[in-house]
């Protein structure tokens, strides 16, 4: 691992579905060892960005480098946590088996997971507090438990870069805190973590780096530099209300809760009501 090169380097990345661009000319540099939120309105291309970095969707143009080498050469350094809803949880298998899938790439062709894989999977389940569920049929899990199983599956890959698609979707507050603690542990051990995130309210609290995305990259960098009222306006346009109070102090943030819709009433959404408004923006999900 080369420490001086950024963990992720994206150059001129453009992805189009049919004739509609989903991502347009994205440049992105993510330094090693940060915990980064990717935020933006529905349809902004957050999931597409993650999938394009992973080579799951074919970009029309652009390159992705992981720790200074093309993704194809360094893909072993990258782990992926897909959206929980992307699989059928009625599949006939148990928790331990799903977590061991994280080792399939390293195992290679024709080799079955054995004792070592079992031990790694159990350790990962321990980390996410799911060890007691190892033998549980996966259809019997709650949403938060499913999410933690997916996290454990990525943990056994022992990667340097983690890409997570909405890991907080549909989990309760306690699980969310547990997951955040885990992500911060990963960062503390030098890993780089990218998280598609919907709750603007918690961005400054959970993350130290942020990317604002709406087809184009609006901004990316340390939260206290780029998570500003101005950038949020640019990202969300006038359509989605959110509170300006979430942005850090001293960055010219006004008390005006509604952005760009021309309605009067400064400060109307501050405080408790503002929190509720921000939560509402977190409800939407995108494909």
């Amino acid at each position, binding site marked *: 691992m080369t420490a001086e090169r950024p963990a992720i380097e994206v150059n001129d990345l453009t992805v189009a579905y049919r004739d509609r661009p989903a991502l347009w000319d994205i440049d992105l540099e993510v330094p090693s060892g940060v915990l980064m939120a990717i935020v933006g309105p529905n349809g902004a291309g957050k999931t597409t960005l993650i999938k394009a970095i992973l080579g*799951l969707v074919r970009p029309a143009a652009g390159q992705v480098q992981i720790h200074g080498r093309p993704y194809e050469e360094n893909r072993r350094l990258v782990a*992926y946590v897909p959206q929980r809803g*992307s*699989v059928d949880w009625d599949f*006939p*298998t148990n928790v331990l088996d799903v977590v061991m899938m994280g080792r*399939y790439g390293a195992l290679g*062709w024709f080799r079955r997971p054995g004792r070592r894989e079992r031990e790694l999977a159990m350790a990962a389940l321990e980390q996410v507090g799911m060890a007691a569920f190892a033998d549980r049929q996966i259809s019997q899990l709650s949403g938060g438990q499913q999410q933690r199983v997916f996290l454990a599956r990525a943990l056994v890959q022992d990667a340097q870069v983690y890409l997570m698609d909405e890991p907080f979707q549909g989990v309760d507050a306690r699980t969310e805190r547990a997951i955040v603690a885990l992500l911060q542990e990963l960062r503390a051990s030098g890993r780089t973590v990218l998280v598609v995130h919907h709750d603007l309210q918690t961005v400054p609290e959970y993350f130290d780096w942020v990317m604002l995305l709406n087809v184009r990259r609006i901004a990316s960098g340390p939260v206290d530099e780029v998570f500003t009222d101005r950038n949020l306006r640019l990202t969300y346009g006038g359509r989605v209300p959110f509170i300006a109070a979430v942005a850090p102090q001293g960055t010219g943030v006004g008390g005006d809760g509604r952005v760009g819709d021309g309605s009067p009433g400064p400060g109307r959404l501050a405080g408790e009501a503002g929190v509720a408004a921000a939560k509402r923006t977190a409800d939407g999900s995108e494909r």
Partner: protein
Amino acid sequence: MAEGLSLPVFDYTLRMVALGSGALGVVSGALGVFAVLRKQGLLGDAISHAALPGIALAFLLTGSRSTMVLVLGAAAAGWIGTLAVMQIVERSRIKEDTALGLILSVFFGIGLVLLTYIQRVPTASQAGLDRFLFGQAAALVGRDVALIAGLGALALLVTALFWKEFKLLAFDRAFGESLGIPMRTVDVVLTSVLVLAIVIGLQTVGVVLMSAMVVAPAAAARQWTDRLGVMVLLSAAFGALAGVSGALVSSMVERLPTGPTIVLCISVIVLASLLFAPNRGLVWNAARRYRSRRRLRVQSVLVDLYALARQHEHLEHAHSTAAVRAMSYGRGGTLASLRALEQRGLVRRAGRDLWSLTPAGIREAESLLAVGDREAP
């Protein structure tokens, strides 16, 4: 046709029929699990129908009636049909179900035209290719069985080798790709062995109904287990059972096509599984619902009796069945519930048709009501 029905073990035809159809049931049952889990139940139908023009063309080109040649033709056509489905889905806006329907009917139509043409060619009139439509188990000979067993073993071997990749493909393809496993290749390999599993059954079951041997055993097996390995083994066993029993019956009755008979057998297995499997079975679910409803009814009768007793000085005041029944708004089963409560010592008979709460019954009713209070907002 088999005339000697006395002892199947000694009859060559019956032995071949049992071996061949059992083997094809094992292979299609095992591979069908992956088709079903990938929600591609219709793929088997498309492959088997698409195989028909391959059989006809193989005969027209080589003039051979050997099963080996015809099965290879079937495999080639089935494979081309499947790749066509994949290409249509990838390159156009047509969705997979429509693409499957298109390929199935177009290939099958071409196959029927070719078969009709072959029937008219005087030299080829005896080809007997129409047995591939509905299957004819009695036509199986040793060479056919060897072919079924050989190709089937190949399909099962590949499945064992690619077990974890097939599982990943069925469960979470995108994650597999992120691991660097070429899932497209894995998809082509799995589809190819599925083609193999289907074409070895065509002579016995027929192109029209072969898809049942892919889908039905897996659907039945899913009812009984939550583990992929067990599901594959069970599905193979169900496939073998249906194959053997159906083929034996059809080969003992003159001119009874094998495909429909085997499908009837597997349908019985599916029906029994849907009804009686623990946890997922309909009967099981109904029984569970009935038990919980009865428990609720007994509880509500206890609480009703408690409410009646509350109107009197002491809580052990007796009431008639009719009084309790009047409180239950015609839910029915009041007397049976009272008897059940009596057996549990919560209620006792205070005379003919008179019931009163025991001290244990009072405690139970109060705890039920307390729980109700706590749950209220």
